[in-house]
């Protein structure tokens, strides 16, 4: 799991590469939560994430909720059709704000 970050205005874009599963999820959680401060805006770019396991979905949701509690706004982009399907079928999709592109994601965060 590789994690890269860049900033666009007040938004931090986090680019994840690799599977998110029981082994890699803790690293993702640790990094993203360290960036999540009150008032911060995070865009999680999942384009290079080919697969999320059950543990991966759960830790993504946990991290999403913890960020929200810390008053951070979080948006996901780049979910592959397969992952979106899986998240929809298992009931996870509804909990996230998901956009189709970086621009849309940035617009959503700036609202």
């Amino acid at each position: 799991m590789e994690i890269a970050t860049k900033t666009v205005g007040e938004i931090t874009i986090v680019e994840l590469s690799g599977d998110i599963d029981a082994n890699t999820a803790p690293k993702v959680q640790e990094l993203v939560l360290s960036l999540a401060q009150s008032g911060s805006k995070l865009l999680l770019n999942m384009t290079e994430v080919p697969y999320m396991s059950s543990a991966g979905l759960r830790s993504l949701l946990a991290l999403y909720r913890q960020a929200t509690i810390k008053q951070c706004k979080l948006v996901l982009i780049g979910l592959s059709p397969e992952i979106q399907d899986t998240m929809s079928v298992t009931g996870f999709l509804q909990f996230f704000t998901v956009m189709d592109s970086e621009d849309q994601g940035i617009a959503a965060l700036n609202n």
Partner: protein
Amino acid sequence: MNLQRIDIHPTDTSPDGKYLLRRGHPLPFGATIEPGGVNFSVYSSYCTSCTLVLFEKRAAEPIAEIPFPDAYRIGNTYSMIVFGLDYENIEYGYRMDGPNDFQQGHWFDQSKVLLDPYARIISGRDTWGKQPNWDDIYQHRSRLSFDDFDWEEDRPLEIPHEDCIIYEMHVRSFTKHESSGIKENWKGTFAGIREKIPYLKELGVNSVELMPIYEFDEFENSRTSPITGETLYNYWGYSTVGFFAPKAGYAATGKLGMQVDEVKNLVKELHKHGIEVILDVVFNHTAEGNEHGPTISFRGLDNKTYYMLTPEGYFFNFSGCGNTLNCNNPVVRNMVLDCLRYWASEYHIDGFRFDLASILGRDPLGYPLANPPLLEQLAFDPILARCKLIAEAWDAGGLYQVGSFPAYGRWAEWNGKYRDCMRKFIKGDRGTAGEMAQRLQGSPDLYASSGRAPATSINFITAHDGFTLMDMVSYDQKHNQANGENGNDGSDDNDSWNCGWEGETDDWGINALRHRQIKNAIALLLVSQGVPMILMGDEMGRTQYGNNNTYCHDNDLNWLDWNLKEKNPDIFNFVKQVIAFRHAHPVLRNHSHFRNCDYVGSGYADISWHGTKAWNADWSEDNQVLAFMLCGKHAKEGTVQDNYIYIAVNMHWDALWFELPNVSGLNWHVFANTGNGANPCFTPGAEPKLENQQGILLGDRSVLILVGK
């Protein structure tokens, strides 16, 4: 300060030095993920030792075999915590050692790796119909599952039983057909059902009964069709491999092992739309068959405990499927209870329908018990307290208990007598009118004297066993050659009539009669007291081309063809309207039996019987006519006000004049008249007034439903 438990550090190492261990907890049974490790717990009354076998996902050979130290054993329970497992990527099983003595009923065999009976995810048949690797020493593998799921505000709906309208559905059959319009990888799955929730709402049913969803092996008894060369499968699934796991091959996410979340999410969505979920459960036998069948789990763990055995050690076969689960053995009883509690609490299931339930009332040697401990236990369990418990009140060993199933005031029954009587009357048999009167009232002859409510009676005319409704009016005989059993399978007592031609025909008159008979059946089913059950596809005229036992077909004999909705719009519309009518009229859904008198002071009895003459029913042997009126002021024992409803049935081959009972202050309006080809029914609430309030000429083989306003 977050307190950590003081008992989660390892204390021992496995003999191969690879894994850290600790004494485990006997409860809960099965495998549970804990901080840092996994707790495994399994029991056996007769084994002498037990070993945990670990595999990497799909690997041919185990990566580790860890014997349970005897020091960890409590009673007959073997439990152990293993640390450092890659819990998303391992599969586990057990090897049991013990006596191997046929006559004593012991089948311990260390060479077999056994499935955990409490496994919550089972892999090995992750994709439906994909050829398994037959060399695999461990075919059905236990996997670890997460328990958590965000139900938000969801809980079982607790719809009053008499208000339920049940739709019996096969998960794969419902959306597998091309015409379902579902995304390809969702066809034939739990996700597919979710996509069709708008359809179920349009139809108006509020309860779906899913044919078995516990993991089963579609390749059990798989063979080739002698007619088409296609593979025949164990398609219906009445043969359980594991009682705590949903079938992976029914899940769109089965390949990813996410079927637990998929099923829970389906239940949550159905609940959100006011639809209950009933599971068809098969505790009468398992997939291990008789002495020639495979050893998957129970046989190798504790054969003598789990199966009813003859004194010589052979398997009793009250199920007709090779073995019989020893349900009243206390160990097995507890497993059945654990299973149902698990599905009720963790999956929010609203009810259970027990296949061949009479087996659950037999003792270990097969004798019927007067007070079967298992049935009593289920009836009084606190977690199951509001679940519907429905028994198919017979078995394949000669017990037929419709009306006498040990109920403890809780169990409902598939009323086979309702089905038989309705079919006979509808096809015009004489001598059935008297029994019809009982069946229409919720069968008080069977249930009232023991204090059981009308909702005890699950009324059905069709179910997965037997003809579809379209076939019941299109075939006199079964046509089961395609099953490859020389037509020896399937019932011969179909009480069906083909309306003049066997099978498909272009004859307009015959087809019109068939459609009318279907509407007659649906109308009677939905105005009867009790709980109606509709077979998937009957609302569209689904046909199995006369095959009344399609248990082995993975093709369009079973798959619902959604084009039928356009092909038979009159049937769909009629069923939909009659369902809406039932929902609109509580007088059709009483909580208690009729008292046959006026107990609210309306001037009319709660139910009165008529014939072609008002207030004069004809109960003679030859009679093919029946009519009754429900007093709206007696609806739900007088607790709600409803319209008066009059229903007349003419199963004679000629039209007959029915004199209508007069209720002062009310005019009759026509909700349905199946004899009116152009307008067999109207929208509930918008029924047109009958021109002649004195009487009506009701066509041959027709049902009339009037509403008093």
